[in-house]
């Protein structure tokens, strides 16, 4: 079967700095794929490249076989990619309900039941805050609203950038259930960046580990957990060696 | 060919003065992230302050330079919190509000000057005015030469402060990240006040020179606001090296257009070039801006 998303030898430079190097990712329909790695590994840059915020220096991004390189962000969205942001980007001075309505394609009443405002807000537990300003919501609620807003464009692929950041353990558990529900009931493929390993290990079917812009490991949660290179990257033992390699290139 | 070199020298000598304005302006933007639309009006106020000091005392305007600088630094030090209030007051689009605020100040200053001093032009005479000396057949106006030497010296002093001293390090840290600078024990609100004070001091001092070289009148601000914008946009907002290069470029465009194309086209060309630079290279011609 054709992959939902296929990223081939994606490379991006900021000035002289190489942020992403030769990244390959292929997502099968229905998986939850984790993108992890230390800070500054290029995870968010990869998200920005895939959603058309930046144009990659080299490489290919295909959604259902269609090349997206050079296409504007809204085109990527129409092809079925939706995302959230690491540092929240809600429409603060619009209400919760308006935040959803503004990105919906078509009239709310003509959409499939589960994609209607009421259902989406119920899904993320915000059905009692419809007419609050998004900017006035508590932090965790803002994160959930971002997910609901991303779902409102009826995506095929949902990209979550650190959805659990700043959440306490019980909120994280709720979030884990929410993501699984989205994956199963909406049959949406999920690509997520996350630092909270418990969530990643529990949810993801497969994981890609980035360090300094390069893939250092890939596999099931079990394989990643036992990979020496990953542990090195996180604990810093091998960081100097990697730095050295990078300087040589 | 003589005309060409004369034009070149004139251009370089005008450009040198703009560097002083641009250096302060660009640092002000770097730390406060506010574009001061009233920059030309501060130049105008500096020129008027010197004019009246000279008018009442009869002492040479250039003698007042240090006094003007100190005076406007004090004004800046006490004016900045007002601007800061606008920036911190607003949760959203604070920077646009600050921009509109300085826009309002520019209208206020110009209106006040027009109301108090009227529309007529005044001239400032310094001990250098009207004097020339010649090098290789090219005549060099002493006042412009003095002003450019001054501007370059001030800019050098400025760069020295910024890159070689502890205060400079604090300023640069504040310019990078105000919150982090705060965590490192740098009093960023005081830094911002000092930076604004330096900016106003330099701007008013340049006003003294510009008023002596050209003339002093309430409407002179617009011209220098354009020049300041031109220099910092072309140089890249926040980049001092870029500002120096662009200041010289501005002087050259001014003088060559005036001689070879016609004085009435200067503004058309400058505004158009400014607009095009914004579209094509918003980070400045050196690509070093913010």
């Amino acid at each position, binding site marked *: 079967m054709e992959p939902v998303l296929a990223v081939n030898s994606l490379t991006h430079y900021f000035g002289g700095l190489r942020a992403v190097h030769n990244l390959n990712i292929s997502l099968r329909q229905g998986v939850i794929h984790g993108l992890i790695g230390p800070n500054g590994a290029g995870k968010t840059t990869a998200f920005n490249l895939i959603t058309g*915020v930046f144009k990659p220096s080299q490489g290919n991004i295909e959604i259902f076989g269609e090349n997206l390189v050079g296409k504007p962000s809204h085109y990527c969205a129409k092809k079925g990619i939706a995302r959230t942001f690491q540092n929240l980007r809600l429409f603060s001075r619009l209400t919760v309900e308006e935040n959803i309505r*503004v990105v919906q394609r078509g009239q709310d009443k003509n959409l499939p039941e589960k994609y209607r405002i*009421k259902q989406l807000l119920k899904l993320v537990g915000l*059905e009692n805050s419809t007419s609050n300003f998004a900017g006035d919501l508590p932090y965790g609620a803002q994160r959930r609203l971002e997910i609901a807003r991303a779902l409102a464009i009826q995506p095929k692929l949902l990209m979550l950038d650190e959805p659990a950041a700043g959440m306490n353990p019980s909120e994280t558990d709720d979030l884990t259930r929410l993501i699984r529900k989205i994956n199963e009931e909406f049959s949406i493929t999920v690509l997520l960046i996350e630092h909270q390993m418990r969530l990643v290990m529990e949810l993801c079917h497969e994981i890609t580990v980035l360090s300094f812009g390069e893939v250092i490991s890939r596999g099931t949660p079990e394989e990643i957990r036992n990979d020496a290179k990953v542990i090195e990257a996180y604990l810093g033992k091998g960081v100097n060696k990697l730095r050295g390699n990078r300087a040589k290139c | 060919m003589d005309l060409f070199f004369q034009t070149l020298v004139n251009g370089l000598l005008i450009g040198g003065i703009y560097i002083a304005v641009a250096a302060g302006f660009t640092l002000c933007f770097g730390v406060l992230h506010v574009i001061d*639309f009233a920059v030309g009006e501060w130049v105008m106020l500096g020129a008027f302050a010197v004019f009246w000091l000279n008018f009442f005392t009869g002492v040479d305007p250039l003698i007042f330079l240090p006094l003007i600088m100190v005076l406007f630094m004090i004004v800046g030090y006490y004016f900045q919190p007002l601007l800061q209030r606008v920036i911190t007051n607003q949760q959203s689009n604070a920077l646009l509000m600050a921009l*509109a605020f300085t*826009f*309002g100040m*520019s209208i206020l200053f110009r209106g006040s000057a027009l109301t108090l001093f009227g529309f007529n032009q005044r001239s400032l005479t310094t001990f250098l005015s009207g004097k020339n000396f010649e090098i290789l057949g090219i005549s060099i106006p002493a006042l412009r030469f003095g002003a450019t030497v001054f501007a370059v010296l001030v800019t050098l002093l400025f760069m020295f402060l910024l890159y070689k001293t502890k205060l400079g390090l604090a300023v640069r840290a504040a310019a990078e990240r105000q919150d982090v600078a705060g965590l490192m024990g740098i009093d960023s609100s005081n830094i911002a006040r000092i930076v604004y004070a330096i900016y106003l001091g330099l701007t008013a001092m340049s006003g003294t020179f510009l008023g002596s070289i050209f003339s002093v009148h309430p409407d002179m601000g617009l011209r220098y606001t354009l020049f300041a914008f031109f220099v910092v946009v072309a140089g890249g907002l926040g980049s001092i090296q870029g500002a120096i290069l662009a200041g010289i470029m501005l002087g050259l465009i001014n003088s060559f257009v005036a001689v070879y194309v016609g004085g009435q086209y200067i503004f058309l060309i400058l505004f158009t070039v400014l607009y095009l630079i914004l579209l094509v290279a*918003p980070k400045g011609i050196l690509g070093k801006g913010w």
Partner: protein
Amino acid sequence: MEYVDNSQKRNLIWIALLVIVATVIPFAISSFWLRIVTGVLMWIGLAQSWNILAGYMGYVSFGHGAFFGLGAYVTAIAMSLGVHFIISALIAGVFTAAFAAIIGYPTLRLQGAYFAIATWAFAEAIRQIVLVLPFTGGAYGMRLPPMLNENFFYYMMLLTIIGTVAIAYYLMHKAKFGLKVKAIREEEIAANVLGLDVTRIKISVFALSAFFPGILGGIYAYWITYIHPDSVLAPVIADQMVVMTMLGGLGTIAGPIIGAVVLFMGNRLLWVFWGDTSFYLVLVGLAVALVILFLPSGLVSLVPRLGKKDKPKVDDQPNSSVTEHTK
């Protein structure tokens, strides 16, 4: 929701009353005051146009006066070629809108202060071009055939302003388009990533905000019969659009109306007592500074009912509101 229905009914009655009053005004006041009221109307339209761009979309232009001046010149040129006034004014509107769309494409890629400087530079460049073009009369300007019918200009302005305000209200407060525009103001990148064609929306809004000033410039030119760069392209026109809107309240329909009335009336009063005085600029500058410092939401925020702009309705029973919204 009984409350909404009632308040809408009340609003409609108010609007009907206003229209009736506006229609009979020329027969009730002297021609001196009629000119002033016509001027107020024009400024309401100009401030509202700027508000569409700056208040709702968050793009602050300091050069919006250029579209007013262009409209005036296009109308003058068209009429000098024998085109009927109404057609000329419409051509002026379409021309400025199209022009805005073309320059908007590159200019709207700039953000914040860069956009403000670019529009300012652009407007000044237009003024300088008009000064040197062969067919605009340079600094001397152009004359239009005189038409000394104050009532005609009053009704022309009135009609245009009703159109401007109604379209602004519909697009920004009723239609989904307004939500998209505000989404751009709040988070442009997120709006784009979630499928809004940000470029197209921005250009449409920019063109719309140039369309009305174009027409108003045309009407003004014919009304005043003599235009030159220092009258219709003066920087003070853009200044006043900014000031009136900020004074009244950014991003509200009532704001620019209140701001225009207060500021223009103030201007005329000053003029009646002291003639042309630069002291007006002092007041304008002070007004901007004080409003930004102490009343950032403008005069409308003093009148709670008008100032509610985007404020959400407070629901007693949150659950019921969900059903309302998704019906």
